[in-house]
């Protein structure tokens, strides 16, 4: 038995493959559409604000915006993948095909989260490829880019698992997405630096974990950020650990899954 086969079970591999194949089969909706949406954001905001703002010295607004849009797409699509898959399976009843086999809660959550990371990264790369032509981007610390992209996608994938387990109808999931994920993403500094905000809203932004993901990700491009990437990494890692613990616990208990 080779290393991979010993530590990565066939059940986990199959569920990861299924979750990846699921979004790939409807790539127009799950990949192309969010790339187009990000492109439209860039065209509108870039056109309106280019030349009026200089967020970091020597960095144009469009160049500042691109990493923010890439990361926003990574986060939103990672969340959408696991949450929509789970809620659809619960409502149509086919979740039983995952619950009947001998899959452990670790295998289930790992597969759902990794598939979310794959979708988040694929969409993020797509957004990057279509927007990179609009500004001169630098890549000061590529490792930070990769670390925050992967960690951010994993966090939102885990949040999607939690939301998918918790929600019993599409309406509840939409509420989770529209009243929590969307505001947290938009108010995290995708379109602006929080230094431009009044002190009160700067303080509010600092309790938003999404801010640290995007700020750290952007640091990888420009070597400049609102706070140290190490601080962001520590906060984001703790946030991930807390969410993963909650998600694993829900799955282990069979909350809303095994009655």
């Amino acid at each position, binding site marked *: 038995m080779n290393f991979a086969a010993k530590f990565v*079970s*066939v*059940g986990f*591999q*199959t*569920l990861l*493959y*299924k979750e990846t*194949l*699921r979004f790939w*089969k*409807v790539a127009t909706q799950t990949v192309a559409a969010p790339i187009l949406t990000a492109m439209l954001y860039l065209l509108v905001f870039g056109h309106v604000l280019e030349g009026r703002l200089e967020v970091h010295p020597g960095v144009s607004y469009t160049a500042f915006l691109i990493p923010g849009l890439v990361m926003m797409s990574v986060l939103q699509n990672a969340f959408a993948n696991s949450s929509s898959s789970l809620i659809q*399976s619960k409502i*149509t*009843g*086919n979740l*039983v*095909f*995952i*619950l*009947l*086999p*001998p*899959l*452990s809660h670790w295998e289930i959550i790992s597969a759902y989260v990794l598939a979310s990371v794959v979708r988040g990264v694929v969409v993020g790369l797509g957004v990057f490829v279509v927007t990179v032509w609009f500004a001169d981007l630098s890549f000061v610390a590529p490792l930070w880019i990769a670390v925050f992209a992967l960690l951010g996608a994993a966090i939102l994938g885990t949040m999607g698992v939690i939301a998918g387990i918790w929600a019993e109808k599409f309406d509840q999931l939409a509420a989770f997405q529209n009243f929590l994920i969307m505001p947290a993403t938009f108010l995290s500094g995708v379109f602006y630096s929080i230094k431009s905000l009044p002190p009160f809203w700067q303080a509010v932004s600092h309790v938003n974990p999404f801010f640290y993901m995007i700020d750290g990700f952007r640091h990888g491009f420009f070597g400049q950020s609102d706070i140290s990437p190490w601080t962001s990494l520590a906060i984001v890692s703790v946030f991930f650990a807390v969410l993963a613990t909650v998600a694993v616990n829900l799955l282990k208990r*069979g909350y809303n899954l*095994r*009655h």
Partner: protein
Amino acid sequence: MTAAIQITNVEKSYKSLKALGGVSLTIEEGEFFGLLGPNGAGKTTLISTIAGLIRPDSGAVAIHGHDVVTDFRQARKKLGVVPQELVFDPFFTVRETLRLQSGYFGLKNNDKWIDEVMDNLDLTGKADVNMRALSGGMKRRVLVAQALVHKPPVIVLDEPTAGVDVELRQGLWKFISRLNREGHTVVLTTHYLEEAQAMCQRVAMLRAGKVVALDTMSALIRRIAGSQLIVHLASGALPPSLRHLVAHDEQDAHDAHDARRQDSHRYSLRVNDYAEVEQILAKLREAGAVIGEMQLKQADLEDIFLQIMDGGAL
């Protein structure tokens, strides 16, 4: 020998509703076992508990000695369940669905068996068709195939023939019977009692979450009170000495002298053995009655089922 399924005093309640009230059953390896009962009797709750989809409030279930909660990996490997609901994943074809299900059970490169299962369930022609494009009967076949894809020693079928055509039923039972002959344990719930009578060696009947009958099929049928002699009198009347043998519901109708009943000379008489038939015929002849038609109907599972569900004792 370890039991295929050992259910020990399982209780499950949903708020004030007691779905299972202390069910205990032992299903031996190689049995073809029927789990019968009216809607709401607790059959699906019990099956879901066996499958690990429902966690009991108390009691335990083991598959081949493996507890379905504490040793769920081994228990689930040995179990294949065909759910009652017609569920499917609309993203995949039939072959993809079966390969994925096979993978969840840790099996790679399982195409030889997948092809055999599809062939036996007449699914080969639909292998590359998306699940959404299948008819209800075809989707049901895929559900059966999914349950068998890892060759489980214990197969649980929760109303597998509900709403499917005769051809599928015959094909399905032929395949399941073959698996049973090869040593697989089969547990079946169905509302088609003739199917249960034809297939099952042993039967448990559930009523309000409790086992109210548990025996071999032949013993159950032997235990019910006799058969029925159905006679249609061309002329004459039923003598008073035979009135007590008429089934109660018919007796009421006859006593009401309902002239509109076209079959007012048709009687169902309870008989315990063949010797009684001759005595009844003799009494009819003595009374001058002429028999137009006559039929001896053996008790079947439906009679037993109705008697038990009406609260009767065997």
